[in-house]
């Protein structure tokens, strides 16, 4: 099982609902976030193009953060989801420096925090909070090893890209373009 997420940049409007829903679902303190929105604009008036992306941890298959963690707090969990065990984390921030996507932050309680793909929900058969709330339904989540999962199907049908592929991290976040 390999969990992954695909985000349709053609539909995302950058509303940040995914950010708020994650904050309330996962008790992320105000002032911090596990997911965020990026707008990339190109061109000069009136020849313009813009891509909007909802970003979060890429749950890399080859993740530098897990590799560099001195305590083993950062680890691969169910379906390849990259997780941090709170009470093993000493807050040294080595993982934060190693992550090419700036996906991690130090929680005010002292440990490093990041997106978990809402594993606690996924275990109950629910979608991650961001996927479930998105008003444009632009996010797809599921198992890459299951060819009938929403995410496998949409990746087959549509053109996509990953972020910073040259880092060799094998991200599990796909952006439909």
């Amino acid at each position, binding site marked *: 099982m390999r969990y992954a997420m695909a985000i349709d940049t053609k539909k995302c409007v950058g*509303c940040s609902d995914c950010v708020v829903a994650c904050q309330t679902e996962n008790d992320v303190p105000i002032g911090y976030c596990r997911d965020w929105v990026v707008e990339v604009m190109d061109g000069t008036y009136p020849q313009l193009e813009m891509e909007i992306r909802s970003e979060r941890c890429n749950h890399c298959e080859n993740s530098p953060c897990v590799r560099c963690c001195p305590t083993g707090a950062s680890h691969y969990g169910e379906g390849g989801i990259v997780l941090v065990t709170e009470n093993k984390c000493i807050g040294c921030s080595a993982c934060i420096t190693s992550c090419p996507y700036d996906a991690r932050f130090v929680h005010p309680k002292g440990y490093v925090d990041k997106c978990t793909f809402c594993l606690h929900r996924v275990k109950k058969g629910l979608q991650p909070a961001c996927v479930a*709330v998105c*008003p444009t339904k632009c996010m797809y989540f599921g198992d890459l090893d299951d060819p009938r999962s929403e995410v496998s199907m949409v990746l087959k049908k549509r053109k996509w890209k990953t972020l910073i592929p040259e880092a060799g991290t094998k991200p599990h976040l796909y952006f439909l373009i």
Partner: protein
Amino acid sequence: MNSRRQFLKISSLSAAGLIFGGGLLDAFAENLVKKNPSHFKGPFDFVRTPTYCEVCFWKCAGWVYKDENGRIKKIIGNNDDPNCNGRFCPRGTGGVGMYNDEDRLKTPLIRTEERGEQTFREASWDEAFDYIAAKLQKVKKEHGPESLALFSHGSGGKYFGKVLKGLGSNNIAAPSYAQCRGPREVAFLATYGQGINSPENTDIRDTKCLVLIGSHLGENMHNGQVQEMSDAIDKGATIITVDPRFSTVASKSKFWLPIKPSTDMALLLTWMNVIINEELYDKKYVEKYCYGFDQLKEHVQQYTPEWAYGVTTLKPQQIRETARAMADAAPAVIVHPGRHVTWYGDDTQRLRAVAILNALLGSWGRRGGFYNPEKASVPHYKIPKFPKPNKSWREALGGKYNLADLALASGLCDASMPTPDLGHQIKAWIVNGTNLINTLPNQANTLKAIQELDLIAVVDTMPMEITGYADVVLPECTYLERYDSLRVSQGREPSIALRMPAVDPKYNTKPAYWMAREIAKRLDLLDYFPFENLEDEIDWELQQVGTSLEEMQRIGVKRIKREYDDLYFEKNEDIEFDTNTGKIELYSTALAEEGFEPIPVFVQHPEPQEGFYRLIYGRAPMHTFSRTANNPNLTDLMDENTLWVNPKVAKEWDLKNDQYVYLENQDGIISDFSIKVRVTERIRFDSVYMVHGFGHADKRMKRCFGKGISDTQLISNVMIDPIMGGTGMRGNFVTFRFDNKKEA
């Protein structure tokens, strides 16, 4: 001017903050779960209660989930709700911030004078109600019931409305009409005999072509419409966006027409020209249903694409191409009427042009165009008839704006000033949930009117600017802490939704129903409030439609089967429209009767002088007007507005990204605060853009005080729509300043 009603600031309020410290609150939260018997367990071991969202007018129905300690954890959409399909927008998801906001109004306040200084003192509810009731009675006795007015936005308005009507006044207005969607309603009524209403009857889900004119879906999170637009994108619909700004939706559009601001009418008329002359219109539809085609055809001959080029700066080829794209998709095409449409004072006419264009394309009553919405009919408990007002709100308008179908907030405000030509003068305001200082244009005017009043009572959850001018402030609890009347929505499928308290009211706050009833009690108007508790009335209503409060507490939303199977027109169906001619009026007989142009004409609007730029404002997806500006969850996403400036302009003025500037408008009004510059290609060189709802001047709102600029402050030139009194706000021009010192 006498400053009897000086603006009051925080210093006088400190006591309230002390009384309700955090420790007390924790103890308070503990027993909530046990106390409220109607809560029940939801699927994730949380307690959940139904609500419908109050953060904007879309009123999405959802569930409030609580954690083991009885604290609100999250708010999630109800899957059965046609308004939201289980998905709230960011503001609704962050609605819990309204409840948690520590700057909320906490207890009733009465204005007093202490050692020559005006101040608010904390009052008991009884004192506050006695004060208001006595003043209302006095004003009624001295000036007649028509001197009382209610300004309202949101659920509580209904209840205060009963008090007002019981006293014999129908001066009840919402700024959402004359300051927002009024022209649209009047224009569609004039054309189709039917308004657009809310939620809009646009069939975006099945459309093949969506035309947005200055409407920025996705930045304005009108939830159902944004969701359906996304469905339409999935199905490959063509989107055409007309906007001087490269909006979010412009970036998703096949065609973006970067029009010169204020020239939309020219484009609309030219589109008609192309569609008629190239015979792209729906001939059968026009022949069967429309009135005045020949006059229209002749009228639009003058508006050629080549002419429009000079006016709009859009290339003739672009105009032709987009007209053809619409016709290709017809009748599954929507030329969207927008929502906030009070721009240039000829707004009813511009929306008439939108209505006419839709008629030419045959989209009204067609799948993928405009469907025929239905609303559930929920009977009301019988109460005595309200006395007939001696004078209605119309008379406050001095014989103007006969086609307005609802009262004008701006009109009532004007009628509060002593002028000889108006029917009567308004002396007392009840203001419910609307920050008139920021919703009515021309602040100086509003402030002047306020000085003339004998009473201003304000009901709100937050210390919005308007509360600073009140004689009495009534702190309302948020929608998460109260019952409200059922939501009865129009749509493809009618539905009703329940709002019930998830938690008890925090601080010394109360629901509007209770407040209005307490005031009614003191005025001998209890007959209009037969139920002591609102939930009993709701239960009675629900029983009439075959459900109950108990059932609705469990399901939250009930869809109701349509009574008529008439979502779209049948093929060749004979239809009588509710207009003078019984037809869709391309030529409006109603407008002609009132002495207005029966077919829209293009009028040139003023342009910015050298060194000035047109002030354009809009929405951000994480905020609703100024109402959410202090919400801790939402300010976390956006805590100030920025000023979009084209790089060419930035260069000319030597402006850098993230630099703060003040703005001065054409009338010499300088902004109180400064705004951060965002240099971007996404805005035309003749305009600047900001999101509405920032630049709050009330220090009691700590998170938003002084953050960004209030566009309203700079909107002093208001272009009134002669047809229905709408207040056009897009004719204001600003220039940059590096300080806000007024010249001596």
